[in-house]
C-alpha cells in the first residue's frame, strides 16, 4: 500500500529543509515531529529498526497534515500524500489508536467530528450554493447569518448546503480516504440536487478541500455525480472582487484598538488569498494592521485540524503559539474569517489579553449595501 509513496518518504528522510515551517516540530522543537523525523521513522520501521506501538504510531498521527511543509518544499515532494497513505495503512492494520478510531466512528455516523447531529439538507434551488460545513455550524455559528447578509448586499441569494458536514479533510488527514471521498461527494451530490453551478466557501480550508482536491481525496469523483465539479470561490475573494468593483462598500469602525489579521489554518495552501483578504479587512479598520511574524506565506495553523482529536495537547500548543505571536506584535484584537481558527483562538485569547473578532460579522455590521 505504501509502494506509491515510498520514494517520497525516502527523499523526505534525507531532507530537513522544511523544518523552519513544520508546525509541530516548531512548537515542540523535537526532530521526530518533522517530516524528516516521520519519514525516518516510517522508513526505519520498514527496515525492521522500529516497531509500531502506541508511541511510534502517536508520532505519525501528530503532524498536522504536511501542508506547510509541502508548500515550502524545496523539491516539491508530496509529503502530505505520503503521510496520509502511511496513516491509512496504520488504520487498515488496526494500529491507529483509540482517538483516531473514535474520530472515524463519529465522522461516519454524523459526518462531522463535533456534534451527534446529522447535516441539514439544502432546501430550495439556485445556481449558487454556500457550503456551510461543520465548523461554521458548530464552532462559530455567527458566520452564516453574517455571510448571508453580505451576499445579499451584493445582490446574491444563495442556497445553503452542507450545513454540519465536514469537507473531508479530517478524514483524509486521519487516514480514511474512502470516508473523505464520501463526505466530499455528498456535498457535490447535494449541490447537484439544488442545481448549483458555483459553490461559495467560507475558509481557506474549505477552498483547499474542494478546489485543490478536486479528485475527491485520491478517489475519482463517483460516476453518479450529477454535476461536473462546479466553480469554487471563497466568500472573501468574492467580496474583495465586489469591493474593488465598487459594488459594495463598508463604513470604517471607530475602534482604534491595535489589531492584526490572523491568516487561518491552511492559508499557506492558498497564496493568492493573502492580499485580497487583507484588502477587505482594511476596508473596515481605521488603522493599519500590526502584522504577525508568522503570516502570509509563512502562516502557521492553530490547533483546528484533526490533530485536536489525535493530540489535543499539541493542538493547544499550536493555538497558543499563534496567540503569543499576536501578543508580540502588539495587537489586541485578532481578526479572522475562518470559523475553526476563530473558535480555537478564542479558547485561550483572554489569557493573553486578546480579543477575537469574526471578519464576516464585522463586515456585515459595517456594510453600506448594494450600490
Amino acid at each position, binding site marked *: 500500500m505504501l509502494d506509491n509513496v515510498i520514494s517520497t518518504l525516502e527523499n523526505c528522510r*534525507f531532507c530537513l529543509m522544511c523544518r*523552519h515551517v513544520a508546525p509541530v516540530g516548531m512548537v515542540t522543537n*523535537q526532530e521526530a515531529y518533522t517530516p524528516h523525523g516521520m519519514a525516518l*521513522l516510517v522508513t526505519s520501521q520498514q527496515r525492521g529498526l522500529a516497531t509500531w506501538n502506541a508511541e511510534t504510531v502517536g508520532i505519525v498521527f501528530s503532524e498536522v497534515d504536511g501542508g506547510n511543509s509541502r508548500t515550502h518544499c524545496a*523539491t516539491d515532494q508530496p509529503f502530505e500524500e505520503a503521510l496520509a497513505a502511511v496513516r491509512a495503512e496504520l488504520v487498515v492494520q488496526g494500529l491507529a489508536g483509540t482517538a483516531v478510531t473514535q474520530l472515524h466512528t463519529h465522522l461516519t455516523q454524523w459526518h462531522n467530528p463535533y456534534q451527534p447531529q446529522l447535516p441539514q439538507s439544502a432546501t430550495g434551488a439556485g445556481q449558487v450554493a454556500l457550503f456551510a460545513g461543520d465548523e461554521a455550524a458548530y464552532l462559530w455559528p455567527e458566520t452564516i447569518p453574517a455571510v448571508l447578509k453580505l451576499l445579499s448586499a451584493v445582490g446574491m441569494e444563495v442556497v445553503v448546503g452542507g450545513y454540519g458536514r465536514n469537507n473531508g479533510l479530517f478524514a483524509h488527514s486521519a487516514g480514511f480516504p474512502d470516508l473523505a471521498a464520501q463526505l466530499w461527494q455528498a456535498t457535490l451530490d447535494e449541490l447537484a440536487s439544488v442545481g448549483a453551478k458555483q459553490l461559495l466557501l467560507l475558509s481557506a480550508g474549505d477552498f483547499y478541500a474542494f478546489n485543490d482536491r478536486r479528485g475527491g481525496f485520491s478517489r475519482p469523483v463517483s460516476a453518479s455525480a450529477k454535476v461536473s465539479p462546479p466553480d469554487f470561490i471563497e466568500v472573501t475573494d468574492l467580496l474583495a472582487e465586489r469591493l474593488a468593483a465598487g459594488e459594495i462598500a463598508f463604513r470604517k469602525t471607530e475602534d482604534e484598538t491595535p489589531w492584526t489579521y490572523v491568516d487561518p489554518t491552511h492559508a499557506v495552501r492558498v497564496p493568492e488569498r493573502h492580499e485580497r483578504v487583507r484588502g477587505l479587512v482594511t476596508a473596515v479598520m481605521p488603522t493599519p494592521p500590526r502584522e504577525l511574524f508568522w503570516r502570509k506565506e509563512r502562516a502557521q495553523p492553530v490547533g483546528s485540524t484533526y490533530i485536536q482529536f489525535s493530540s489535543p495537547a499539541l493542538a493547544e500548543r499550536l493555538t497558543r503559539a499563534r496567540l503569543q505571536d499576536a501578543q508580540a506584535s502588539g495587537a489586541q484584537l485578532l481578526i479572522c474569517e475562518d470559523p475553526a481558527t476563530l473558535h480555537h483562538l478564542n479558547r485561550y485569547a483572554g489569557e493573553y489579553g486578546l480579543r477575537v473578532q469574526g471578519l464576516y460579522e464585522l463586515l456585515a455590521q459595517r456594510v453600506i449595501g448594494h450600490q
Partner: protein
Amino acid sequence: MTTLQHEMIRSELEEVVGKEYISTRESDRLVYATDWFWLPQMWLDRGAQPTLPDFIVHPGTAVEIAEILKIANTYRIPVVPWGGGSGSQGGAAPVFGGIMLDVKRLNRILEIDETSLTVTAEAGINGSVLEWALNEKGLTLPHYAASANCATLGGYLAPRGSGTISTKYGKAEDMVLNMQIVLPTGEIIRTPIVPDHAGGPDYFHLFLGSEGTFGVITEATMQVDYLPAARLLRAVLFQNLGHALGAGRQLMTRRLSPFVIRLYDPASTATQVKKVLGYEMDGAYMVMGFDGDPDIAALQEQKSLEICLALGGQDLGREPGEKWWDHRYHFYYPPNGLHFPWMYGTTETVTTFDKLEKLYWAQKRAVEETYADWNVNYIGHFSHWFHWGASLYSRFIIPEPPQEAEEAIRLHNRIWNTAITAVLENGGMINEHHGVGLKLSRFMRRQYGPAWPMLERIKKTLDPNGIMNPGKVGF
C-alpha cells in the same frame, strides 16, 4: 549503563529541565541517532542499528545547560550538542550514547541593534527564522548556508561554516562579535564584547571550530548587513580550468568584491549544472555576483568581466547567473543531491592560490585512479574565495558501493584516506567549512603535527572528564 544509573540520571535531569523536556522514546532516540554523515546514515539505510543516545534533553536556558553538564560530569557520561543535526561530519552523532543536548529551545532573538548593525540571539534559533526576522528590518545575516532552513546559529559557528556569499562577507566566524558559552565544567562565560582588540590573548576563537568539544554556545552577537539594493549575477564559460582559476584569483587580489564566485569543474558542469539548471555545456561554468549600490556593483561586474574575457572566458550573460542564484540550493536537496544507495563524501578543502590547481588535480587523480574499479565519480567546484586563496568543494560518488555494510565502511574510509592524504601532501587544510566531526577526527594529529598535544592539553583543562562530544575533532 545499568537501569539504576539510567533512572538516577533521568531523575536528576528531570529536576533541571522538567519531565516534558526529556525523552527516551524509541522514535526520538532513532531520529537523533545520526546527523548528515554518510556512515551512520548508511548503517541505518542497511537496516542496522546505530548507537543511540540514552537521553534527549531540551534545555531552555544556559543555566539549565550548566546544570546538565554538572550531572554529566558526576556520572561521566557524554554530552553531544545538537542544533539542527544537518552537519555532514558526524559531529552531532552520539557515538558513545549519553545525553543528546538539543539546543533548539534556546531560540529567542534578544536584540537587534540597528545602530551597530548587530543581532544578538540564542544559539538554537533556526537560520531561516532569524533571517526572516532581520529581513523585516531590511537587514540580513550574510551567512547564506544551503542548510539555513534547518541549521541553527550555534551550528553555523561551532563548525566554522561558510555560506554562499562568504566571498564578500566572510565565514560565520567572521560575523560573530561575542558569544555566551557554557563550559564543560558548568561555568557560564561571555567572551569580550568585540573580537578585534588588543585586550589580551584571543581565547574567543578557540570555541569556533570546537564543535561542541569545548562547551556549548548559548548566545551569539552577530554582525549583520543591510539587504543589498542590487544583486547582479553573471555567468562565464571557460574552456580551461586553470584560466578560470586565474580569473577568480584576479577578482580577489584586485579586490573587486564579488559576493560569490562559483566555479564548477568540467565534470560538475557536465553533470550537476546540467541536471539542476538544464544547461549542456563543455568547460568550466563560472558564476560571479556583485551586490550593494547598483552603480558600484555594475562597475565591479564590468571590471571582472574584462578580466574573465581576457583569460578566454565566454560571457554567457545574466540569465544563466540569475538562474543559478534562484536554484543555488537545489544542488543539495533530493532528488538532485547526494542520496542512497550511493556512497559519497564531500572532501572539501582550502588552500592558497599558488597551490589550488595542483591540489585539485592531485586529489582528483588520486581518487579517480585508486578507485577506478568502483566507477568513482569525482566532481568539484571552487566556492569560498579569499584574498589569498579559495576552497575546493570536491566530492566522490560511488554509484554502486559494496552491499555489505562492513565492506562499505572500509571502502569509504579508504577513499577518505586517499583524498585527505592528497590534501595534506599538497598544502591544504582537511576542511574549509563542514568541520571535523567524527569523520575527520583521525586526521587531526596529522594536520596539526607538533601543535596537536597543545590542543589536547587545552581540551583536558577545559573538559577534565572528557564529557563533551567525545570522539569528535580528534578528542
